[in-house]
């Protein structure tokens, strides 16, 4: 039964994610005084990609062939690690849903992303792969500092356990270090979704997404879905720790969760659309230093026992 709901959680996310992407694209177009694509455009895109033929670079090896599937598997496993349709009662799945499992699945995604980029021998893919790694270097520690506060505060790295504690109110916003950590963590998770000023999905040659420059056809469709899932998973990571709205019935909590995550995703447009673009080091230094200092502040508060 656990696994049935887990599958449902995953499949519904895959089905719904393109809709929210479409909404955010529409909204962005409105901001830029364009009519913009239909809200279902992302579905059309994926469908069209599935029907297209493929070309590949002569340099590619097995990594090119398996990387779309590996990316999908890791992104999907990341999403499954979010305790939405299951809780501490599920003995099996609570051995899986763990903060470090989620973080290191994210790292696995990044590893495959980089390796796939280098494999294509495309000049832009290489540069983007390097940037992907650099962004990981900047974001990882901020995310972990925030999570240290939560994990040491609750005494566990088990996600369902943390979720239930926060929801019951035994641990939560009454504690200053927790609430400060939440702001920094939300920022990092936004960075991890790979949007401007850190990335721009439409400008493939210059940014992170350049890794995918050589992918096409169904491979690219799978990667698109995987990236959407990863974005949902990292936003959901924030939600399950800092805003757990769970209900008795798994379906209800699933629907509420999807609505929440979709809302966050669409709201990202407000940063995305109005934020400037930087070169990678400058942008990272300007924006991440602030998040880093916020997270350090929350850690200091925790260490002092507040």
């Amino acid at each position, binding site marked *: 039964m656990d696994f049935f709901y887990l599958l449902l959680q*995953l499949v519904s996310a895959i089905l719904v994610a393109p809709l929210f992407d479409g909404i955010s694209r529409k909204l962005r177009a409105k901001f830029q005084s364009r009519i913009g694509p239909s809200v279902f455009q992302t579905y059309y895109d994926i469908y069209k990609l599935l029907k297209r033929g493929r070309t590949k*670079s002569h340099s590619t090896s097995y990594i090119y062939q398996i990387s779309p599937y590996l990316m999908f598997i890791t992104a999907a496993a990341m999403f499954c*690690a979010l305790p939405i349709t299951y809780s501490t009662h599920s003995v099996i799945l609570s051995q899986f849903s763990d903060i470090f499992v989620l973080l290191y699945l994210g790292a696995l995604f990044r590893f495959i992303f980089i390796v796939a980029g280098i494999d294509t021998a495309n*000049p832009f893919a290489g540069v983007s792969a390097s940037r992907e790694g650099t962004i990981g270097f900047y974001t990882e520690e901020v995310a972990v500092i925030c999570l240290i506060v939560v994990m040491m505060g609750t005494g566990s790295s088990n996600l369902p356990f943390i979720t239930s504690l926060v929801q019951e109110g035994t641990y939560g916003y009454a504690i200053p270090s927790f609430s400060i950590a939440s702001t920094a963590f939300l920022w990092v998770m936004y960075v991890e979704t790979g949007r401007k000023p850190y990335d721009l999905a439409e400008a493939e040659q210059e940014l992170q997404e350049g890794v995918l420059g050589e992918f096409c056809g169904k491979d690219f469709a799978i990667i698109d879905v995987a990236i959407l899932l990863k974005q949902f998973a990292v936003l959901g990571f924030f939600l399950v720790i800092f805003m757990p709205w769970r209900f008795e019935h798994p379906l209800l909590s699933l629907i509420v969760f999807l609505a929440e995550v979709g809302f966050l995703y669409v709201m990202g447009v407000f940063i995305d659309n109005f934020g400037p673009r930087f070169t990678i080091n400058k942008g990272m230094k300007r924006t991440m230093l602030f998040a880093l200092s916020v997270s350090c502040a929350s850690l200091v508060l*925790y260490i002092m026992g507040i």
Partner: protein
Amino acid sequence: MQTIYTLFLLTSLLSILLYKKPLLAQKLGFGLACVISLYAAIFFFSNLKETLIWELPGNFISAPVFRLDSLGMLFSFLVSLIAFAVSLYSFEYVKFYEKKANLAVFASLFNAFILSMLLVIASDNVFSFMLLWELMTLISALLILINDGKGAAKNVMIYLGIAQIGAFCLMVALLIMASFAGGFEFSAFDELNIGFGMSMTLFSLLLIGFGSKAGMFPFHVWLPLAYCQSPSNASALMSGVMIKVALFAFIKFSLFLPQFVQFGYILLFFGALSCVFGIIYALISNDYKASIAYSSCENVGIIFLGLGGAFYGLGTNSPMIALLGFIAALFHILNHAIFKSLLFMLSGNVYTATKTRDMDALGGLHKKMPITSIIFFIAALSICALPPLNGFASEWVIYKTMVTGGIEEGVVSRFFFALAIIALSITGAMAIMAFSKIYGAIFLGIARDTKSIEEAKEVSFMMLLPLGLLASFCVGIGIFMNDVVGILSKIVLTLIPQTNVSTYGFISMPIILMVMFLCAILPFVFLYLLKANNKEVRITDPWACGFLYNKSMQIGSNAFTGDIRKALSFILKYESEIKLDGYFSKAVYTHKTHDFFWDKLYEPVIHSIMLIADKIGIFQNGRTNLYAGYILIYLCLILIFGYYYI
């Protein structure tokens, strides 16, 4: 166990006796080493819970006794397991060094090296320990010298120099401990009655002594020099198990001291420094073997983090943290031994095929060496601690220790555990970058220098067999992590009794794997339902924005880390030079990264020692009458001294 030691000794002697027939000696030496170490691995593993004692027959100074308890058994098992894989690999690999060195000597040294490590683990008094410890260092230095060449002597001297600093600290520490214990036997060392200051001093001496051998920061400078110089099978043994022997001895001796909570803090601090600096240098290096060597420093740091948790637990008398910490450290020691020796052997494969260690010249090797490449992929995944492989399993236990340690009240402990987690996470992010770079630059893309991979071909089955074995250990230990933790916790319980163990709250790797399999089905279902286009893939040049594609458009290993290097410019000294002569001629780029600590810490010391040695050198000028004068002066001084003081 005496049989195993004797057999290794006999094999070593036999190989050296056959020095006139190196090929025969090589077959016999490595073949026998392989068989004996397999037997030894099985023997030590099956006796994991026993304690064995063996007294050397005959009249020796201080009657050496060899004793193996549970922990010693575990480390002996580890040494023999890795020795088995490495000797199986060496059987073919050493032919590469046929013209460079006498293979009989190589085989003999190889066996003697394994023997010396096993004996260091088993030795039970100060005399035999120090003797065997130095012997181990010397044999490893000779193994490095097998690959003679430019700069070899200097590299070996640096290695020996740092090893001697360590050995000196060790000698002092052990002699002080012996004088407190009133005997040179380690069994007399239990429950030393010493105060805080003394035990702190002893602990620092032990840490310097063993840390320098283990490649702990700031003693990491010898790692890239020694490992790059030595043949790959020797570096696999040195990095895989020799530094583990140092860690074993560190655990053994520091448990004799009365425990204080500060031990834990020291270890956490140096562990954090080691792993961050180790991985930074691994990341920016352009030489794949140096990268792998630096990552040893990183992993030793991670192990020290686990040990730091353990000693903190002992100091504050919280057995759960101590237990978790020791399990984490031993687990990571086991894993690091496996994947690091695997990586060194793989780098040996790459080097024998391409004859270059420069990542900027390689690329596209997967097409020539597919199996080596896939095994390298697995090893890289597990050293980056990615699920579901073994590196992740042990790092998870370390994280668990850190989180459990940080819960308790107290500003200092919270600070150090938070520091440890942050260091570990930065290390994780950079390890991803470092190893994806190494894997990508060597095996993927197109060869940057086509000459280098022209003659490359896959190595023989005999060489791939041990690599495959170790790779399957990487996967297997990852999946069955809870069973391994169970075995390790039984061993740890012999070190710290009065604790009960529970694996409650551990993750379960099979479930992670199951969920991943479940997720793996989905894309295929979608592709099938939506009737994806499955036509054959057309092959083209990579897209270069409309320009004609050229293989040098690929990203180089140097450019790959450009942004990080800029961001870390405050601790990395980096020089790059562009030489341009004329508009149409080729530009020459040279780049060099300095080891900050080599420049700031070692260079001045070496320089001043050289200067002093130079000045002292005046006295040694070969004139006999001056030497007679020295003796005269010395005699006069002795007479004056004797007259006044005795």
